């Protein structure tokens, strides 16, 4: 009876390869988890916004017109000679340059006129300065030559979340720091997933001695205390973004090996794998085409959690001072400043809330992804 029902339902049009009924059901399940769905959107908005940090917080105009020439200071380094000065790099915040541009054209500034390493020379007092909304307008501009009447005393030069103890704007550092954290986390996650999936696939598919030896190597490898090794390495090599990525990659690729290996071990005995072998399909094709989709469910489910783990690792290294080179914007460095400047609680609080919100969003997204791929849910 079901035979006939099935035949009647045959339809003519080719189907969408990506939005298979299974994937549609997963998407619907993901959307059903409102918390995760909204978290994804909030996170994407935050991430895309921070990707354009240069347009939000920068110490140079986005576009300027000077003597009839259209300039893009945010993208191009113009020497100061252009504006009649003599330094190699133009300081657009300098009164001289500002007046020069104003006299011969115009400039569009981002809403915040500091980037992550700009030191504000007109802070009302030394050390970490409180958020501007905690002080009166006059206090904020106390050090400007004309005080509150100074043309530079406007919202673009205020520090909405205060400054750190070196006079750098916290909002600017936060934007750039969020961006570098997420980019670092994403890069680390993607590369370590690719390595982990390949390693797990080879082990699971071939099994036997390959599996046995590889598993023992991984056991030994994971028993190395990674943090101490990181501390030692980063005290020998001057760490930058890529060096840190490489070091963390040494240890993070094992995260997925176990589950991918298990999926391949299970999957290699499926009848459709035997069918593919009987057709003479090569091992690489079988692994990529027939087995990998099975393992991808487990992999994708883990990815948001690996991402949040990577961000936390970078943050903790930065907090300890073994992370990104000094001066880089980073959430860990902000937390370290908060720890060293207890008299300036906005530093610690800002760092804490940023990291807490980011982690929460990622975990919510991860939960929703896990639910979407849950076979028991997708059957319902």
């Amino acid at each position, binding site marked *: 009876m079901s*035979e006939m029902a099935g035949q009647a339902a045959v339809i003519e049009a*080719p189907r969408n390869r990506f939005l*298979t*009924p299974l994937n549609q059901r997963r998407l619907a399940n993901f959307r059903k988890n409102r918390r995760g769905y909204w978290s994804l959107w909030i996170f994407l908005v935050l991430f895309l916004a921070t990707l354009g940090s240069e347009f939000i917080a920068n110490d140079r105009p986005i576009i300027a017109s000077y003597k009839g020439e259209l300039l893009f200071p945010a993208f191009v380094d113009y020497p100061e000679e252009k504006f009649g000065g003599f330094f190699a790099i133009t300081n657009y915040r300098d009164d001289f340059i500002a007046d020069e541009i104003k006299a011969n054209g115009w400039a569009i500034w981002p809403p915040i006129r500091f980037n992550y390493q700009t030191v504000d020379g007109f802070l009302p007092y030394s050390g970490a300065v409180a958020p501007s909304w905690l002080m009166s307008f006059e206090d904020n501009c106390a050090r400007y030559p004309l005080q509150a009447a100074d043309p530079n005393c406007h919202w673009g030069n205020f520090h909405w979340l205060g400054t750190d103890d070196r006079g750098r704007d916290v909002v600017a550092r936060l934007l750039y720091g969020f961006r570098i954290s997420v980019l670092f986390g994403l890069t680390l996650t993607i590369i370590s997933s690719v390595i982990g999936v390949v390693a797990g696939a080879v082990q699971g598919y071939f099994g036997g001695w390959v599996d046995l030896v590889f598993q023992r190597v991984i056991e030994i490898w994971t028993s190395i205390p990674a943090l101490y090794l990181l501390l030692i390495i980063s005290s020998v090599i001057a760490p930058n973004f890529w060096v840190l990525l490489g070091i963390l990659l040494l240890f993070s690729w094992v995260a997925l090996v176990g589950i991918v290996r298990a999926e391949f071990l299970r999957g290699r005995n499926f*009848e*459709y794998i035997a*069918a593919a072998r*009987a057709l003479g399909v090569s091992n690489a094709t079988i692994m990529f*085409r027939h087995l990998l989709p099975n393992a991808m469910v487990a992999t994708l489910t883990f990815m948001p959690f690996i991402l949040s783990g990577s961000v936390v690792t970078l943050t903790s290294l930065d907090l300890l001072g073994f992370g990104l080179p000094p001066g880089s914007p980073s959430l860990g460095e902000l937390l370290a400043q908060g720890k060293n400047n207890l008299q300036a609680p906005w530093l610690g609080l800002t760092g804490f809330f940023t990291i807490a919100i980011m982690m929460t969003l990622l975990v919510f997204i991860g939960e929703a992804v896990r639910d979407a791929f849950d076979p028991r849910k997708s059957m319902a």
Partner: protein
Amino acid sequence: MTAPLLSIRDLTIAFGTNEATRRISFDIAPGETVALVGESGSGKSVTALSVLKLLPPSAKLSGQILFKGKDLVTVAQAELRAVRGNDISMIFQEPMSSLNPVHTIESQIGEVLAIHRGLRATAARKRTLELLDAVGIPDPASRLSSYPHQLSGGQRQRVMIAMALANEPDLLIADEPTTALDVTVQAQILTLLKSLQQRLGMAMLFITHDLGIVKKIADRVCVMTNGEIVESGPVATLFANPQHAYTRHLLAAEPRGTPPLSDPTAPSIIDVADLKVWFPIRRGLLRRTVGHIKAVDGVDLSIRRGETLGVVGESGSGKSTLGYAVLRLIPSDGRIVVLGNEVQSRSWKAMRPLRADMQIVFQDPYGSLSPRLSVDQIIGEGLSVHMPQLTASERDDRVVKALEEVGLPPAARFRYPHEFSGGQRQRIAIARAMVLEPKFVVLDEPTSALDVSIQAQVVDLLRDIQQRRGLTYMFISHDLKVVRALANQLIVMRNGRIVEQGEAAAIFAAPQSDYTKTLMAAAFNTEVIAPQNLDPARPVTP
């Protein structure tokens, strides 16, 4: 007629908007056996589960299930628990998964006794021994401390029956209790159930898809399809004079026809000599090989062009292993010559050009098609390996032709396996093998996962293709009825060895070995055969 023991009135079971059964009604009198027959998806198992309210919470019941005048649909949980396992008990299809693997036989049977009778320790042990003895477990005292994996499938099902009978229920619900068992074991279990039923005077609700079993065991039969009972009546009248079209269709569904005549002068294209597949048993710290499990042990066979070799045997006889070894999907020892090529010495890579000529169709159409590939990807995959020179449109043409050959519409190639029924999936699997235009095809139980009416269609299809293309088949099956409809030559296997070998027609007419005789009796006789000592515990793999 006495008042019915169980009376089901207008029972409708719905999952969401999907009704699994629609207003079904039937009665079971005390001591009577009623069989519920239907194909998969007909709602028969759901009905059985609903009697004890074992359905998932998403199921909505309406109607009445009157047991001794009490409506089980509305009764409270606590009262229901007193009925379950005590007045009504149940045996399930899969004896491996319905026993808890981490508890011994004694504690599993003891649990039922403790819950409903309050029997403990020595009293429970005594009763357990009685029960195991009653269900025919040899030397029950030594089996008390066994775990389920240490018993054979037949013994496990006997333990399940012992558990079900522990409290001498008034009604036993048996949900396909023999489907997972070999034919000879099946026959013994049926005999056992029948004799226990007579001795204890209990009623039985017997769920099955197998009309042969119904004939052997039931007094009355209800035929179900699509959630409705379309016909019911005493077994003799219903079989002699079926009224409803579906019943007639079911009765006529047994595989029929005879194999196409083979040419005795045709050259043999498969020659296998002294084939061995031994799996080493390793023990101890150094994993020394202490022995072997001989899955296939010294098999010789040859198949002539255009012929079908049937390989029959019960589970564990090594028949599937033999098929895999001939195709070199698993390593083996011995000589294998396929189409004049000595294949045993070839590497995996060097085998590849031969693979187009030797194909396989697997048993489970649900497992043998990758759920993530569309049908044209599945069928076209072999083409892309063996005929990479084909353009996309040429490949598409061949896929369409292969689908048409197996009786599926060309539009089916854009769909995914889960959108097809079991029979259609098996057609896709056959198309995948046939698209490469092989000369030799191993059919590994291609019909045993299918409903009977679909089975017959697939058998007809395979025979058609064979005649059209002059194909050579190796047909592996435990189902003698299907083999009879297809095979020219026959091999009967048991424990890795060939028990009997020869012309199929001759063996079916006059089997020589005792084992073959028992197999035939179990498969074709409608009478319950006398139990023989044919349930040897397989050597336990350490």
